[in-house]
């Protein structure tokens, strides 16, 4: 396919993905708004006042970047895993598989669809956060780049989950038993400086810690880790997951016979 045809195919998939999650906005855009508002009220405002400062900032200011990142991660992942598995389940994925659209374009279309939802939800959560606290972004480039790359990474992970999934149960196992614990333990609600050396070392094995801290560094200018490692880690994971997803697609894993 020529670059023009590839662009047309990509933009078609992307547009369809955006149309899908905006069509069902009460399921895709409203729940994170409710959940995150509750987090802001309970953790940030009510409990946060008793916690005092963390990392030199009020607890509300500290927790906001983590909550934005949590929303981006869960929505990016959730969008792609749900959309691609539904396409498999309804067999509408065959529309794409029988077409000349290359595998990498299919993957890119779904992933960028997940990124779009992740970033829109992230933006909405940011706007809600502004009701509770003021935000002054310290490093705009780092902030935008890390949130974008994190969204790409978790969209890719959702895509791979959907390829392997054989039932709707299979698309909820990873978010429930892997993603949620890693996110909650990934420095969203606390600085790892509060932990003992052993738990600090263990926390540093959690990739989400790096992304949350890199984003917090972008917004507040403070981080528990070296931000450069966050970018190295995220880019490495993106490269590895992309290669894995393309390998699965080229071998037709659970997509072709």
């Amino acid at each position, binding site marked *: *396919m*020529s670059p*023009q*045809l*590839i662009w*047309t*195919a990509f*933009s*078609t*998939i992307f*547009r*369809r993905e955006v*149309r899908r999650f905006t*069509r069902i906005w009460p399921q895709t855009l409203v729940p994170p708004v409710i959940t995150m508002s509750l987090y802001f009220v309970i953790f940030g405002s009510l409990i946060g006042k008793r916690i005092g400062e963390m990392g030199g900032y009020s607890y509300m200011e500290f927790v906001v970047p983590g909550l934005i990142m949590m929303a981006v991660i869960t929505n990016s992942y959730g969008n792609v895993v749900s959309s691609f598995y*539904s*396409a498999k389940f*309804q*067999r*509408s994925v*065959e*529309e*794409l*598989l*029988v*077409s*000349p*659209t*290359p595998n990498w374009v299919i993957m890119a279309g779904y992933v960028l669809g997940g990124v779009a939802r992740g970033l829109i939800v992230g933006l909405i959560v940011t706007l809600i956060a502004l009701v509770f606290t003021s935000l002054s972004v310290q490093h705009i480039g780092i902030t935008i780049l890390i949130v974008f790359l994190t969204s790409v990474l978790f969209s890719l992970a959702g895509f791979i989950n959907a390829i392997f999934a054989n039932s709707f149960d299979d698309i909820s196992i990873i978010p429930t038993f892997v993603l949620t614990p890693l996110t909650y333990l990934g420095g969203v609600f606390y600085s790892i400086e509060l932990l003992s050396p052993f738990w600090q070392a263990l926390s540093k094995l959690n990739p989400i810690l790096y992304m949350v801290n890199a984003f917090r560094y972008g917004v507040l200018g403070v981080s528990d880790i070296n931000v450069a490692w966050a970018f190295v880690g995220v880019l490495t994971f993106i490269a590895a997951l992309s290669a894995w997803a393309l390998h699965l697609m080229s071998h*037709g894993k659970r997509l*072709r*016979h």
Partner: protein
Amino acid sequence: MTAALSIHNLEKTYDNGFQALKGISFDVQPGDFFALLGPNGAGKSTTIGILCSLVRKTGGSVSIFGIDIDKDFAKAKQQLGVVPQEFNFSQFEKVFDIVCTQGGFYGMPRKLAEERTEKYLRKLGLWDKRKTQARMLSGGMKRRLMIARALLHEPKLLILDEPTAGVDIELRRSMWEFLQEINAQGTTIILTTHYLEEAESLCRNIAIIDKGDIVENTSIKSLLKTLSREVFILDTRENLEGVPDFGDFDGRLLDEHSLEVTIEKGQSLSDLFTHLSAQNIAVTSMRNRANRLEELFVSLLAENQQPADKEADV
């Protein structure tokens, strides 16, 4: 002339060891209306799956308008439109979006895709339903939706896997007319169907596949010529009081107004009518007991029965 479809020694063995295709070969010429027939599990859908890349072949070669799918499958797919047996679109999308989006997957500019979507939805009687979610359509409308979608990029080769399954007679007839129209405009069509009168009415050439092998590949006319006998039902004007004399013909009384007569190759229907007229029996109408192609189809499959199968039937 380059064949629209050329299949050579095509093999498929699934991971569980089941050999669905045992090296089949056949060609379909450009402009043909071709029937691919066979009983359930014969290998038809596997063959179609390989052509559209949903099934991976384990041997042999396939060319679509001279393009080897092993060398440039993307280019070969541009020539191909597929209407599958099962509904395979998002039930929650609107009819217009389902069809128009397909154009994008083939690199079609949005404006052109919209124009063609309107053209094919109108042709297939779905324009009024363009804003309806697909799940709200009837079974027949869903089938027409898949045909419109497959035609959007105006493929040179259209494959329809049982397109009229579960469709009422009136709609089936209108779909036949539509398919004949696009075939007359130059689109090569390959059809699988369980309605053999459909294949006989529409198709010029035929391949019959059974247990992964091609058991017949010829023109429908040639195939029908091999029919050695035909069984007719005759309706009579007056009540029949007993079994008439059939002379050299093999016949029997079905009820007081109808007879069943077998005409062997070389026998003449006019001789039969003369013989019955001599007994003051007037025939008001006549029809084949079964579709002619159906009789051949059944006999070909019976011939293809393995001895082991026959023993198993005892």
